[in-house]
């Protein structure tokens, strides 16, 4: 099972690389056929990654969140899944050039890490954690898509770049990604609080990692209010999306410089 998991990971990795090239070609070269190839390869990669994580789950007897390799792979999966959902909904492929690059980057990072299956330390033996990490996978994936939309928006100054989608559409997709990510991020925080309450009898402790996740959520709330109350759209909103993704990266890699209670999971 473990061997199969690693095999599926490698296959997903290669497939996603092909998808990335195809997305780039499709976007910059305006190739419709390349875009179809890109989508097919992304779906295959998503399926392989699902198989890899699933077989790992079975082999280890616990959900794949015991080390950084598993986190990086899960987050790649989340980015891929939310992207494919948005692509399916909006039939818009140029976002793929960036989101697939992020997912691919995560897989590259994962491939540099030891892929061994670790047992779960005492504090992590809790089913709430499956949902906690699952929410993170969805919210970070969604925020990565929002980032991609914002970035393309900023690149497409004055709608002059012909091979990029219309800015109006990008602006909306950014919003749609946020309304997926925002409740998921809220669930992440809440389930983290539930777990902390079970493990330590306190639901919130201003632990650096949970605080960073709260900042991320507040930035998303800021984005929503700027949009609803002040009519922020376009460039300003896109900049907020950049900051938001910066916060996600900061939170994800937070234990490198923050320490705190999350350190023991390597995340």
């Amino acid at each position: 099972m473990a061997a199969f998991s690693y095999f599926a990971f490698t296959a997903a990795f290669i497939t996603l690389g092909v998808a990335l090239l195809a997305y780039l070609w499709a976007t910059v070269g305006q190739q419709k056929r390349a875009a179809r190839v890109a989508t097919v390869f992304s779906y295959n990669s998503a399926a392989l990654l699902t198989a890899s994580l699933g077989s790992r789950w079975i082999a280890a007897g616990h959900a794949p969140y015991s080390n950084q390799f598993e986190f990086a792979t899960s987050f790649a999966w989340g980015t891929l899944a939310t992207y494919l959902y948005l692509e399916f909904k909006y039939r818009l492929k140029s976002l793929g050039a960036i989101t697939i690059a992020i997912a691919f980057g995560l897989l590259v990072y994962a491939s540099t890490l030891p892929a061994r299956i670790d047992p779960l330390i005492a504090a992590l033996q809790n089913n709430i954690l499956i949902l906690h990490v699952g929410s993170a996978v969805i919210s970070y994936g969604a925020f990565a898509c929002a980032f991609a939309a914002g970035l393309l928006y900023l690149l497409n100054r004055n709608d002059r770049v012909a091979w990029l989608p219309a800015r109006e559409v990008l602006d909306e997709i950014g919003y749609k990604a946020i309304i997926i990510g925002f409740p998921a991020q809220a669930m992440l925080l809440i389930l983290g609080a539930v777990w902390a309450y079970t493990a330590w009898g306190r639901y919130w402790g201003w632990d650096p990692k949970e605080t960073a996740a709260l900042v991320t959520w507040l930035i998303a709330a800021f984005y929503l209010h700027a949009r609803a109350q002040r009519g922020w759209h376009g460039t300003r909103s896109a900049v907020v999306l950049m900051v938001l993704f910066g916060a996600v990266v900061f939170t994800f890699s937070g234990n490198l410089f923050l320490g705190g209670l999350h350190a023991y999971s390597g995340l």
Partner: protein
Amino acid sequence: MLLIGLIAGGVFAGTVIMQAPASVAASPDNFAAWLAQPRGKYGEPWAALFGALDLYRVFSSLWFRALLAVLTLSVVVCTVNRMPGIVASVTRPTVRVPERLFERAPLRAELSVATADAGQAHAVASRVLRANRFRVVPWQDGDAPAVFADRNRFGKYGTFINHIGIVSILGAAVMGGAFGWRDDGFMVPEGSTRAVGHGTTLSLKSESFDDEYWPQGMAKDFRSEVVLYDDGAEVARKTIRVNDPLDYKGIRFHQAFFGPAAVMRVRDGEGKVVHEDGVALGYELKGGAGADGTPGSPISRNGGYFTLGRRNGLPTLAVWVVMPANIREADPEIPAGSVRLEIFEPRQARPSAIETLPQGETREILGHTFEFVRERQFSGVQISYNPAVNLIWLSCGLMVLGSMAVFYFPLRRVWVRVDPTPAGARLRVAAVTNKDVLFAREFERLTLAIDRELDQHRVNKDGAA
């Protein structure tokens, strides 16, 4: 909006700038001493600037609390202000719109119907909208039958549920802080019982403590068998683990940490046992004062104390029990399997006696006979009581469900107007939206569906004719 930005900034500052631990921040003296750390890390003038802005204890600072209070207030004000408008727009929507809307709306379509009359076209449009989960309100503008249709109108109320949830989370947090309590350093040696305190009549006994590890050395399981007594009567018994606390009337006992303990027996001059109990060696002593007050070894040790007798409100003796912490690294002064006793008399800064005592042996010190019976472990338990925690979960649920209602059940409104023409009818559809590709697509689908139904109508009519 600005507020949310400010709070995000404040919380962010609290993440990147080192924070004083809560125990330090609570005491002015300790906090002043702690300030040396950021000075070393950030250098001047930054350290002083951060200090002046109270950025070392963001989450207990006055400005942060004030910000949260203002936030709470403004959420309340916003919500109350918006309520009448939103309620009115849901319960009494703008059903009648002027004809211009059909010429100017961002989403609009026009179908000319040659074979059906206005009434039939109106019925078709209503049927299609209803089939797409719209609520349909017919109306009449002069001789033109018209339709107002909306979907997900109650989704709008989600915004109240969401914001009420936020306010109530903050409120519940304040309540929990005011009426709850917690004890992070509760230690019970195996076989001993300790009073819980905090105004309760509870006491907790640890029957045993066990720790287990994976072959790789990582912690696999920590568990304590505990028994809870209320006024001396057993009321609960459970094996508590890291993720599985004992809950008794809202007071929760969490397995949190552990360490060594020593069982000590003390007899007085007549040979009567005056003390027989475990002492949790929960303090880590490092390079502290050595045997006679001289700077001690850098070897780390564990220590704990118990007291004996009581005269004029003070114990007659305080006994520190110290044990080497690391079995791999031999302690030059305390052999493995022995404890060192440092015995203090009232109001003395230095111990009156220091003795090293191997397990199982007795020693006469200051008129008492001390015996180190055996080594055990203690269970470190975090005890917490938070009467508002269920309110927190409820509020969190409201917050998330409320925002999901707004996000995933967006209000959709469509107006249809059918003007009779000499040739049949002219059917127009309009919708107002703030740029929503998905709705634009749905709008297209809806008009196509109406068109198709009208076609069928024509076929049926032709067939009948």
